[in-house]
Structure formats: C-alpha cells, structure tokens
C-alpha cells in the first residue's frame, strides 16, 4: 500500500516541483529588483517562457502547480498514515545509519507539511505565520526536494521487492473479503497482530482518488477561467463580481496600494526614459497608435483571467525615446512599497508585439483596481509583473 502511494507521489511531486521552479524563473530573478528571495546563492535560471508561446503559458504551469498541489494533499496524508507504525517502532535507532535516516525522515515530514501549509495559506491570502512566503516556500522546496529524492532512492529496492513478491496490482484488486494483511515479518510495516480488515486496499485508494478528484472539481475552474470559474465553489478566486468590463479578479486593490484619486488625476504623467526622456499625459498616450490584444493575466496564487486590453505598444514607446533594443525595461508604480512597486522586464518581454501599456480593457477605461491611468500587460509573465498605476518606464542598458 505504502509502496503504491509512494509510486503515485513520485510523478506528482516531480510535476509540482518543476512547475514551482518554472514560476520562480518566470519572475526573471536575474534582473534588477525582481528576485523574490534575498540576494545570495541561487541555482541558475534553467528555463524561461519563449515569447512565441501563447500568453496563457504561465497560467497553465502555475494553475498546474496549485491545482495538482492541492490534489496531492490526500495522497500525502494517506502516505503518512500508512507509515505511522514506524514512528512508534522500538528501539528507534540501532546504529549511525538508522540515526541519519531518522533525521532525514524528520526533515522529509517537516518540509512536506511546511510546503503544503505555506502554499495553501498563500493562495488564500492568509498570513498568520508572520514569515515571508517566498524564502520559506522556495528554500523549503530545496529541503523537501533533496530529502524526497534521497528517500525515493533508498526505498526503491523496498518497492521493487514488494512488487516482485506480492505483485504490483494484485493486492490492489482484491475486494474486502479477499483482502489479506501483509504477512507478519514480510516488511517493516507488516502488522504483528492485525485486526480484521474493514476496508480493502482498493477501497482506500478509491477514497483517496475520490478526494483528489473532488478537490480538482471545486478548485480548477479559477485557473481555467471563463465559464468554468463559476463551477469552482471552493476556489479562492472562483467568482465573478458582475458582468461589467472591469468586473474580473484583481491581485491587489488600489485601496490596499494606497493609490488616491489625486495621484491618478489630470496631473498624472508617465515618464518614459531611454536615450531621451518624455513625460506623457493620458491624453497624449490616447493620441498615439492604439493596439488591442487578448492577453491572459495569471497570478502566482494560481488563478488567471483572459481579457481584451487596449493601449500603446511598449515597442512604440521604446522607439519614441530611442531605447536600445537589448535594454531592460523597469516599470515603476505610484505604489511605493512592496513587491508590486516595480518590476523589470527582459528585452524579449517588452519587445513582444503584444506587450502593451494598457489604458483600456474590454472597451472601457481601466478601473482604479485594474491600474488606472495605465498599466503594463505582457504575455506569459507572473501577474504582478504587469505593473499597475505606472509612473515611470525606464529602458536601461542591460
């Protein structure tokens, strides 16, 4: 049983870990001000989304990270349940090898619980722990990932032996009447004095699988978007707030960013800096060539939404100030503190023809919560890199 749950966990954890690292790299942590963790040693960026991919690429990987992560909760809890007798095994440690293995198991269980708990709290905008989410979750993944690989390697022979001796699927096919406990002494987890079984292995797996599927059903709609959003009754962002052009989800409000009408009124200008510099009013921006693009905005919290954005192409603004083609674009917000106050975009991100300084959405003015007077929108970036309430666009030499 434990073997089978372990075998299911390997691909699940692998996909969750890969999509997690892809999200970390999608922030372009190598650019100024983008790193979500304190500067210091980090593994190199191994993958970034090509601009030739559709704008929902990040939405897909991050939706997978969150949805599959939640679906794996029943699997992890069942796995821990299946090995609990080992916690009470006596004597606990016979030699140094046993002691090291115990210590690694403590790290394994601790880090899996920390990863899931911090992740779940983050997607629900709940922060009671008083710790910064990014380093705890990111480096926690290092701890969990490495101990998980070690554990899988150490237990591989155990799994192989269990399958050779008892068959890979045979014990899982038996109904309750045919269900036999593992013979005593056949493995570390075999019960010494088993009670009559009250559920078959097949029944237990069905319950765990049923739980995973239920979680998918009540959660995934917020990542798929469109009409499916309403079909996600438990998803944190499984709602529409109306049918108006601005009634789609936001990741943080103008009020929480302390943006006031005075800051975004007639005196608002966006300063664009390249070889030359120019301050543009909203009127002047609207007088420039307008482009409309259908782009997905996707939050690291796993929800996403696709809308029609209208505004000035970032490449046109770059041309206006004579920015060099390889420059990095630093977008600065009126918002002064926190991760949303600025973001750096790589040259390939802002030179994408679809990348806009958006002024309107779905044919209407941007609402204050969606970044009025102007916001950046680029395909395939984490949502918060689409800086809202922009006050400065600075093309800087790489």
């Amino acid at each position, binding site marked *: 049983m434990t073997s089978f749950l372990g075998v299911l966990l390997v691909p699940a954890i692998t996909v969750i870990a890969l999509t997690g690292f892809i999200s970390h790299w999608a922030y372009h942590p190598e650019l100024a001000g983008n790193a979500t*963790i*304190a500067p*210091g*040693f980090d593994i190199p960026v191994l993958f970034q989304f090509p601009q030739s991919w559709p704008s929902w690429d990040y939405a897909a990987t991050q939706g997978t990270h969150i949805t599959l992560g939640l679906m794996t*909760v*029943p699997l992890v*809890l069942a796995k*821990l349940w299946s090995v609990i007798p080992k*916690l009470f095994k006596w004597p606990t440690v016979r*030699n*140094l*090898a*046993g002691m*090291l*293995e115990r*210590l*690694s198991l*403590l*790290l394994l269980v*601790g880090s899996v*619980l*920390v990863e899931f708990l911090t992740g*779940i*709290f983050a997607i*629900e*905008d*709940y*922060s*009671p722990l008083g*710790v*910064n989410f990014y*380093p*705890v979750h990111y480096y*926690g993944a*290092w*701890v969990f990932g*490495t*101990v998980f690989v*070690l554990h899988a390697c*150490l237990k591989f022979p155990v799994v192989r032996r269990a399958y050779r001796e008892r068959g890979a699927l045979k014990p899982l096919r038996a109904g309750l009447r045919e269900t036999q406990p593992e013979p005593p002494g056949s493995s570390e987890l075999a019960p010494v004095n088993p009670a009559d079984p*009250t*559920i078959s292995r097949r*029944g237990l797996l*069905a*319950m765990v699988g*049923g739980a995973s599927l*239920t*979680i998918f059903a*009540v959660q995934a709609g917020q990542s798929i978007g469109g009409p499916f959003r309403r079909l996600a*009754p*438990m998803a*944190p962002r499984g*709602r529409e707030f109306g049918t108006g052009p601005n009634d789609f*989800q*936001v990741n*943080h*409000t103008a*009020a*929480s960013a302390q943006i006031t009408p005075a800051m975004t009124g007639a005196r608002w200008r966006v300063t664009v800096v390249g070889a030359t510099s120019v301050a543009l009013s909203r009127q002047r921006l609207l007088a420039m060539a307008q482009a409309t693009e259908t782009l997905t905005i996707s939050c690291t919290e796993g929800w996403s939404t696709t809308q029609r954005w209208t505004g000035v192409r970032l490449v046109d603004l770059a041309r206006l100030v004579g920015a060099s083609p390889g420059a990095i674009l630093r977008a600065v917000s009126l918002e002064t503190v926190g991760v949303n106050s600025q973001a750096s975009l790589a040259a390939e991100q802002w030179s994408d023809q679809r990348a806009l300084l958006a002024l309107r959405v779905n044919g209407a003015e941007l609402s204050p*919560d969606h970044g009025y007077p102007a916001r950046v929108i680029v395909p395939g970036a984490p949502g918060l890199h689409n800086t809202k309430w922009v006050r400065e666009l600075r093309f800087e030499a790489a």
Partner: protein
Amino acid sequence: MRRAWGLGRFRRRYGASPLHLAGHLVVFAIAAFAIDRIASGAGLAKLIVLYAGLVIAHDLIFLPAYSGLDRAARAALARLPAPQSARVPVINHVRAPALISGLLLIIYAPLISGKADAGYLQASGHHLEGYLRNWLMISVVLFLGSGLIYAVRVRRAVVNARV
C-alpha cells in the same frame, strides 16, 4: 579481497553502505544551506517551531484524532441492530464522505472560517462570502450520494440473497 573486508567492516559499524552515508551527507549539506537561507529572514527559532510544530501536530495530534474518530464511528455502528444489509458494511459509506468533506475543511479552513478575510479584502476588494455555505452544501451532497450508493448496494444484496 582486502576491499571487501573493509566494506564489510564499514557496513557492520555504520549499518548501511557507504553510498547511504554519502547520500545523507549531501542531502544534509543542501538542507542546512537552505534552512540557513530561510532562517536569515524568518529567524531560526521560528523556523524550528514551524517545522517541529507541524510534525508534532500531524503525528501526535491530527493522526491520532482522526483514528480515534474512526474507532468511535465503528463502535457506534457496531451497536446498531444488524439489519439484513449487514453483509454490506456501512462504515466505508460514512468514511468516504467524511474524509473528503474533512479534507476540504482543512484545505479551505481560512476561507470557510473567515480567518483570511482581511488579507482577502486587500487582495480581491471583496469580503469572503459563501465558502461556509458551499462547503456545507458539498458535504451534504457527498453524504447523500454515499448513502444512495449504500442503499443500492443493500438492495442488490437483498435481491441476490433471494435468488
């Protein structure tokens, strides 16, 4: 020959192969670095409380609690008069919906309880609404569905017994 003897002695002293030791040392080195990186922001004490606290909360509180609940449910069901349907065990038709409903409660607790309301309002511009109602409705559907499957199984058992 000499090598094999050395290996044998290592195994007896250490308890496993040298590869086992090497693997653990590499993993502990990476884990120590990662924990140091987290601790530089969050503080080591808080980190230890978080990791150890969660292990203790799961292994010594949560798991014994749901095992105890399961035992209590089985005892309560055993006291019920055994009907014709005794050959279809009822316990798993209680376990399955209880497990799924319980898991949803754990995963979405900050939304269901309203604890996340302040953060949610800042992020989305709206108060938490309807999560408790949705969870209760899903739970009712799960228990009713499970009961319905139970009824079908009992009916089938009765019909088969007559044949």
